[in-house]
């Protein structure tokens, strides 16, 4: 991979740091009045999801990371691995470990397209779409006439996620949910 110098660090660039692939989030140039300039860089470690803040001497460089983000459709799980398929018409399948799946496990639905991050051809992360439509499989019975009041109750969705929903929602309904916050948006 090519090396990237601090002045090429842009949001989204993938680089290697301490052996892990990272995505640059922010890059701030700091320089005392007369003297050495530094770059304060925020990076997301793509293996752990943690955000790192590091300082570099301006002009230093990091090795690029062979990271690809691809759209893939979720197929099925055999309990050990979860299988995704490239949706570019190639039908190429990628097995994913639970560790790489992380929190996304509770947002899985067949035929939905996820963003799958590959590093050196291994899946290291799966990101769900921002909004997903899921069926309610379990919740207390709906309260009629309570469509305007606040109040919420837990509902278990077909993917396993538990979402706070309004009191009027019933089992079997399909809801639109924001996967970033885990919040109910509307009836689908």
């Amino acid at each position, binding site marked *: 991979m090519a090396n990237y110098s601090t*002045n090429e660090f842009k949001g989204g660039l993938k680089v290697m740091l301490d052996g892990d692939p990272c995505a640059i989030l922010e890059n701030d*140039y700091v*320089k005392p009045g007369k*003297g050495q*300039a530094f770059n304060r860089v925020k990076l997301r470690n793509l293996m752990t999801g943690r955000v790192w803040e*590091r*300082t570099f001497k301006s002009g230093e460089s990091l090795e690029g990371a062979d990271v690809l983000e691809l759209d893939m459709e979720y197929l099925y799980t055999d309990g050990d691995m979860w299988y995704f398929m490239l949706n570019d018409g190639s039908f190429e399948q990628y097995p994913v470990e639970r560790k790489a799946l992380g929190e996304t496990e509770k947002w899985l639905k067949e035929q939905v397209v996820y963003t799958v991050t590959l590093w050196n051809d291994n899946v290291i992360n799966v990101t769900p779409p921002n909004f997903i439509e899921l069926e309610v499989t379990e919740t207390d019975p709906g309260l009629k006439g309570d469509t305007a009041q606040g109040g919420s109750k837990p509902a278990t969705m077909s993917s396993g996620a538990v979402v706070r929903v309004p009191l009027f929602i019933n089992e079997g309904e399909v809801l639109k949910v924001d996967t970033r916050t885990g919040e109910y948006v509307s009836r689908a």
Partner: protein
Amino acid sequence: MTIDWRPTADIETLRDRARLIAEVRAFFAERGVWEVETPVLGHGGSTDLHLVSLSCEATTPAGRERLWLQTSPEFHMKRLLAAGSGPIFQVARSFRDGEVGGRHNLEFSMLEWYRPGLDLDGLITETDALIRRVLSSDPGSLRRRRYRELFRESLELDPFHEPLEALRRLATERGGLDMAAACRDDCLDLLISLVIEPRLGRGGIDVVVDYPASQAALARRHRDPEDGEWVASRFEVYLDGLELANGYDELTDAEEQRARFKEDNAARRVEGLPEVEADERLLVALEAGMPAGSGVALGLDRLLQLALDKDRVAEVMAFSTPRA
């Protein structure tokens, strides 16, 4: 992709900018400091280790030549001083390669002025007055802070005497990067940038004085009354964590200047950077005699950013470089 043709500052802000720059001109006119214009393209670049000059090739009466975009109007203005100009100021477009960020832009407006016969204290007072004239609200009182004092307060160490190993360890720890082989000045630069600068200029204007002699650049040096240590006769002005200005008791000794250019280039060789030819015309002008006095360079865009309550210099520029 749509092409964004609009300015990075809104029209209202650009009108305010014009009004404030007129205020700056009035300030100097009242004080008998006259405005000059000097070249953006010159035969000499900056030897400063930490500045990257841009250059271009152009046809001049001497044929095809390499010319340097000036990193500040300093050398040309000093030649005017040597020619007997008296007090002068300039709003000069200046260029520094690689300086990209919220408080930097590849090209920017430097407000630079020179005061023959005025000492550093006098110039600090004048710089403070100029800043207050441009700001719409009272920034609080002026506080004079010694470089050593700042390190003692914030980091409990004396920047001049702390063992280099301890400085390297601290810089490594605070910066999260490997500073094990860094020189003393790089360690101090890192610590002041990350730890001290963000706290400066809060609730008042901070003027930092008595920098290490190794960071004198084009300023004279004097003995620190505390223990006779050599320090640089220069100051920097901070407001809201932003470095606004850099002032010098100007070096007028041609031999000393020549030696510093040589030191710069020696340091450039060590760092594997290209050498920059010293500006011979400046050296000859100093030999001819430049009156003693002080001068200061102020980042006009940053001052306007603060005056107009913006977060980034781009917001007070018609078109910052990405949109230029």
